[in-house]
């Protein structure tokens, strides 16, 4: 079991990184990878929400949708609503309990609703028949993978501020190509752990 959990986490951080290999969470990956501070803040906020979502998705799937046979047609709608309200809830709770924390990553929370990494992870849970612990591992792994990709990209982009990048490539283009190279590098991890 512990091994499997390890595999799930390593798998979603390195081998099949959610951003660089599964193509989830591209918008924030492009949008908030400009500065390392914001990138890490966004990454942590997303990791938190992802873990919460994994739990919620697990319970929703196994105790509401599946037993009542609603899964095939209410899954999407219920997941997205749960994510949206969860994000809202987290925002309120964080604001209430720690304004400092809210200032640190509260601004990212509204962006997370439409981050498809959250929805993607939620959908993967029933698809892979994960139990609760594995679901949490997946959420955590996805979040860490997202944070890692974001942090690496932000470091490179901060350095690129000083570089004479061809004008046409400035902005998203160079980020895409760099992401491609990163993704290429991450392919070195293939086969590191059994997947699936």
């Amino acid at each position: 079991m512990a091994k499997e959990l390890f595999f799930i986490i390593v798998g979603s951080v390195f081998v099949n990184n959610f951003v660089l290999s599964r193509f989830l969470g591209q918008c924030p990956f492009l949008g908030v990878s400009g500065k390392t501070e914001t990138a890490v803040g966004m990454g942590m906020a997303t990791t938190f929400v992802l873990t919460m979502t994994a739990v919620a998705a697990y319970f929703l799937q196994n105790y509401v949708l599946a037993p009542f046979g609603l899964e095939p047609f209410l899954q999407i709608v219920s997941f997205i609503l749960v994510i949206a309200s969860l994000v809202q809830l987290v925002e309120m709770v964080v604001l209430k309990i720690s304004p400092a924390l809210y200032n640190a990553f509260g601004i990212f929370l509204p962006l997370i609703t439409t981050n498809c990494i959250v929805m993607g992870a939620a959908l993967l849970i029933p698809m892979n028949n994960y139990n609760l612990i594995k679901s949490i591992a997946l959420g955590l792994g996805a979040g860490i993978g997202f944070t890692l990709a974001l942090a690496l990209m932000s470091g490179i982009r901060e350095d690129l501020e000083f570089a004479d990048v061809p004008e046409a490539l400035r902005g998203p283009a160079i980020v895409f190509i760099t992401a491609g190279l990163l993704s290429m590098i991450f392919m070195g991890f293939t086969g590191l752990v059994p997947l699936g």
Partner: protein
Amino acid sequence: MDEYRLITTSSPHLHSGESISRIMFSVAIALLLPTFAGIYFFGFRALSLVIITSLAAVLTEAIFQKLRNKPITIADGSALVTGMLLALNLPPGLPYWMAVVGAVVAISLGKQIYGGLGANPFNPALIGRVFLMITFTTPMTTWINPIDGMTGATPLSLMKMEGISTDYTKLLLGNSGGSLGETSALLIIIGGLYLIYKGYVDWTIPASYLGSVALFVAILGQDPVFHLLSGGLMLGAFFMATDMVTTPLSKFGKVIFGIGAGVFTVLIRVYGGYPEGVSFSILLMNAFTPLINRFTVPKIYGEVKAR
């Protein structure tokens, strides 16, 4: 008074006389050693591969700069070094056109799109190699035995797939299967030591890289000497992990870089899908370099501890 006009500049008014081209050509000279080994073992094909990739690299650089209306700086030798390094990382039997693709990718995607020398986040030669690796996997993993010219496996894949070890003298001298320039550990070490002696390579990276590989391999119960001498580790540790542009600035950062590269190399070699992980690990640490730089800002003279 008017017959001459004095020159004013900001101090200092002396310079060591060091220049980028001098550094690059020194590296190129050091690279000649493993190149000779490659030519010795793999013959004319090795020589022609080196020449073709170097030419392709230099030409790509010139064309790219021409298109951007920037001064053409191929004379600084950096594209030449990239081309040579790439060639040394290729299997001797690779079709020429693939080698050219590798060189073009190395210079364009690996370097010029970031604005050229000094701005590239990743080692261009390795980008070229890894690109070829995932694009033309089969030709990139078809190795030639130096002695009989037959296809065979590298010492590392022999080890990984069949658990067969290769003896040290073979590895040291270079008459084993592998990339053009990676087989002779001895010549690579000599070239590397030359660069360290000249001060163009910081010893901390090779030391921490090789040291950590040996240590982790030993922990995992495999033969550290075999792992040090086989595969592209020596070439990587002395010539690619030490690429100034893509490695951290501070000594401490360099040590972290070396250890990180070592850990990932061992991980991929021992557990991963690929038999060799040097290129991937160095590139991965390249990606980490900006973050390492950020968190290893040296403590300055007289920095007061937090009050």
